[in-house]
């Protein structure tokens, strides 16, 4: 066998070692990829395709196998008031939690990056909720919100105010679980802003100070534009989280009262694993995937112009 020299390998464009055959390289590459590709196919891509198919087939029950039912699952879903309720709730939840947690995250990062007394302790306070399991967080807040005994009502009592049942009242329950999500997430997003702030060269600030720029002017003209890529990254994460984190709903309200805190993924769980309605659950999964991809696309199109990558 003749050893190949680099010039014998067409189209590779990069050196691949002196004693290698291109076809062998290809086989090796696929062997390296094999375990991951098999797992992805089995648990992401095949189920992804299968969900689209299942949405047009009935749920198998006992001896009755699944049949093609056209758009039946979809008409059922569209006529299900709880689906609409969950959709509206989830939109409200996303619109409420995302700006607040991202805004707070930025504020926290600016504070912790500056020369504030007790900076280390403060950073720890902001970040700690991130490390806790959402289930534990929900437990703690459930206690916090308890009528009469919880800290909220204890504080209200000091001012002579009556006890409240935030989680039991349909008008306040959704807000109450949104507060928990903000508390849990803001510190997580802070970390990404903090990392980006630390990469802004100090010379920029000195130069701005010489030119007499105010702190706010510096933030608006220099810091904020430089933070755009991080903001985009954080927003994408925040949107995904708003549709995929429902652990606290299980713990705190179970979707109630009267579906006031039912969100899309929680509804999906109810349809799929409480009522075992595979057809409708698949249709709802398709909706959820469509919502997520639509939002991701929109963000990249909208933000793509304003982002300055380093």
């Amino acid at each position: 066998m003749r050893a190949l020299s680099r010039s014998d390998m067409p189209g590779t464009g990069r050196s691949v070692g002196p004693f290698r055959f291109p076809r062998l390289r290809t086989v090796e590459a696929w062997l390296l990829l094999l375990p991951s590709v098999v797992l992805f196919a089995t648990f992401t891509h095949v189920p992804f395709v299968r969900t689209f198919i299942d949405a047009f087939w009935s749920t198998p029950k006992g001896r009755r196998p699944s049949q093609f039912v056209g758009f039946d699952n979809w008409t059922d879903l569209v006529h299900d008031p709880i689906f609409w309720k969950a959709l509206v709730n989830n939109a409200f939840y996303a619109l409420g939690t995302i700006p607040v947690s991202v805004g707070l995250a930025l504020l926290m990062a600016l504070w912790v990056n500056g020369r504030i007394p007790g900076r280390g302790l403060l950073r720890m306070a902001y970040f700690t909720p991130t490390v806790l399991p959402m289930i534990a967080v929900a437990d703690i807040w459930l206690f916090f919100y308890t009528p009469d005994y919880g800290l909220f009502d204890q504080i209200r009592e000091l001012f002579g105010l009556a006890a409240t049942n935030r989680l039991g009242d349909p008008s306040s329950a959704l807000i109450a679980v949104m507060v928990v999500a903000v508390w849990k997430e803001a510190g997580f997003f802070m970390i990404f802003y903090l990392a980006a702030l630390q990469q802004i060269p100090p010379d920029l600030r000195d130069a701005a100070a010489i030119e007499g720029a105010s702190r706010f002017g510096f933030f608006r003209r220099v810091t904020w534009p430089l933070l755009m890529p991080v903001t985009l990254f954080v927003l994408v994460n925040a949107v995904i989280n708003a549709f995929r984190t429902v652990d606290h709903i299980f713990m705190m309200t179970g979707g109630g009262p009267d579906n006031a805190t039912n969100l899309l993924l929680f509804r999906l769980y109810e349809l799929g694993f409480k009522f075992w309605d595979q057809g409708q659950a698949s249709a709802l999964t398709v909706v959820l995937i469509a919502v997520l991809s639509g939002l991701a696309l929109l963000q990249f199109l909208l933000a793509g112009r304003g982002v300055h990558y380093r």
Partner: protein
Amino acid sequence: MNRRLAPLASAIETVLAWVLGLAWLAPLLYAVWTAVHPPAFATRFDLGAPLTLDNFHRAWEAAPFARYFLNTVVIVALIVVSQIVLGTLAAFALARFTFRGRDLVFAVILLQLMIAPEILAVANYRTMKALGAVDTIWGIVLPYLTSAFGIFLLRQTFRTVPQDLEDAARIEGCGTLGVLWRVYVPAARPVHLAYGLVQASWHWNNFLWPLIITNSVENRPLTVGLSVFASVDQGIDWSVITAATLMTSAPLLLAFLVFQRRFVQSFMSAGLR
């Protein structure tokens, strides 16, 4: 800003930052207070209240937490090790091999960033049923054994390794796996560590998929065990529930307090690179 107003503004800022900090700590401190005092003092602030670990003891006795801990440790270990090993292999192929369809494979893998296994729970449940993996540890870990995010991160890292290092190792007689082990794995050590920490905390906390796929004490992780414990077993004995809650979070919380700097840096680097 006016020079004379500047100190005032920064004082206000400090106060605001700390008010927010206290708001962020309050729920946790309240839970700690309740957990380390007798139930009579659960919601009464009295500096003279006696300290006790009895609540932790009662929680530990009331539910099979030892089993839950073991399950969670096994699950987290399997997932983190597998994601790092399989991710390293796949990322190496995508970063340093040229073959037809490479970019397509990478794009298709990245789809998993958005379509998380929880969202495909209904279809995945059927797969697990067909595999006989419902209510097993394998049922919990299988969908998470490899991750698009990990492959993405490691591919970025491998691309920064100088090609000359690989060529030198090849001339010395290293095969493909030898090159990976001697040249690329050492270069990726910080990324492996950062990614491992982030994934360990993520999977320690994971709830929805384990809830769906398990229904027995033998296979439940801590999060699912805690939710069952708090909703069914205990009525409203908050002292015991908060003790159990803190207990399940304690390992991560302690690890975080000890390795705080490392932890924060890990989250930063695993997210941004």
